[in-house]
């Protein structure tokens, strides 16, 4: 190898996979590119992969949650929260969240005397200026730390960098279960704002989680965009780790995948109600045995139904049911498989 191909020491930290966030550039949206009416009882995954909405206490606000092409230079997409029903006085909380497997976080050395700091960087833009809260929550040990950032100028992309101290208490489990959550707060009532912001790691105290949080949901004119989200070990925000779409899609498919399944054409006799099965493998091993949901039938010939008869984290069996005594049988469906945290 030519010497010129070796990274100088000052750039060695940029090599390899640094970003703990999946889909930080908001490229992948397998479920939908837009979901409307998100609010009460809508906690979960709706649009961009790996990003969930969380709420509590029956809020009345609603928003449209979408993948937007409004993005800073160097990015193709952002996540957009567009308020459609306002709630002037906050009720409960609302935030955008990503969850992490413990086995992907061992380099944080959490719960040891050598616990690493982590640095979060992202681009944000909002019509509503003010103070916003980002929280890291340790689900294994019920601990948290919160930091604030400011949206200083309305409707302007701003780059933010926040460093969180390492936590010498609370080791993270080394398994495929959820260990950590990253929460971007959008609204919080006094249950979560009446204390002192927990800027150092501590046992979870609700009143210290989101002190100072702006109410993004108080006006239907409000919106909030975010992209280029990166969480990395250390005290420095390195340049965003851009991944090609295929790489990011594979990472997302460990947690959720949507696939075309097909059986046939086969000429069958001695029907009807004969079942035909085919096995298929997922493109990446899923985190856990996934749930399966029929999304859409594309076409069917002499078949009246389909189902998933067996599934594990590597693949599934797709079964179609013949509806005639004899004839050519075929069917194609879209199924979704969900092993999200």
């Amino acid at each position, binding site marked *: 190898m030519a010497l010129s191909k070796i990274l100088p020491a000052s750039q060695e930290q940029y090599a390899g996979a640094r970003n703990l966030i999946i889909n930080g550039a908001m490229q992948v949206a397998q479920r939908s590119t837009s979901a409307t009416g998100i609010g009460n009882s809508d906690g979960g995954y709706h649009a961009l992969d790996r990003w969930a909405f969380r709420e509590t206490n029956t809020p009345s606000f609603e928003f449209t949650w979408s993948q937007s092409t409004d993005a800073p230079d160097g990015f193709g997409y952002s996540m957009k929260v567009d308020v459609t029903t306002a709630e002037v006085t906050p009720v409960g909380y609302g935030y955008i969240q990503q969850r992490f497997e413990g086995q992907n976080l061992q380099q944080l050395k959490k719960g040891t005397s050598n616990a690493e700091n982590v640095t979060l960087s992202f681009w944000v833009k909002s019509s509503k200026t003010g103070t916003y809260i980002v929280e890291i929550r340790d689900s294994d040990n019920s601990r948290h730390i919160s930091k604030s950032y400011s949206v200083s100028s309305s409707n302007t992309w701003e780059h933010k960098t926040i460093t969180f101290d390492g936590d010498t208490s609370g080791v993270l489990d080394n398994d495929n279960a959820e260990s950590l959550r990253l929460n971007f707060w959008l609204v919080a009532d006094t249950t979560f704002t009446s204390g002192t912001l927990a800027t150092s790691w501590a046992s979870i105290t609700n009143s210290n989680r989101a002190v100072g949080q702006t109410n993004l949901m108080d006006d239907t004119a409000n919106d909030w965009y975010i992209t280029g989200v990166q969480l990395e070990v250390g005290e420095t925000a390195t340049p965003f780790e851009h991944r090609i779409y295929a790489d990011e899609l594979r990472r997302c498919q460990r947690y959720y995948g949507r696939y075309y399944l097909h059986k046939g054409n086969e000429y069958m006799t001695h029907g009807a109600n004969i079942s035909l099965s085919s096995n298929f493998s997922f493109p990446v091993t899923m985190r856990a045995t996934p749930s399966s949901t029929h999304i859409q039938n594309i076409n069917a010939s002499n078949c009246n139904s389909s189902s998933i008869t067996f*599934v*594990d984290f590597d693949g599934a069996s797709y079964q179609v049911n013949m509806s005639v005594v004899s004839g050519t049988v075929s069917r194609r469906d879209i199924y979704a498989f969900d092993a999200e945290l």
Partner: protein
Amino acid sequence: MNIQSAQYVKNQETQVINNENTYVNVGDNVAVDIVLDGKTTRVPLDTANRHYAAILEWVADGNTIQDAD
């Protein structure tokens, strides 16, 4: 997660081996079908699955999973 109903699904094909490398016989329960947001979702009996974890909470709240057909 707003679960509207839940019903066990039996293994109807052949004996299979699950993720824990144990045999699942024909007639054994292998999943739960739940109606969620108007769509039926088939949920494996795996506590690492978030839907199954929600079903267990739903049952703890006093609800019942119906027997398989």
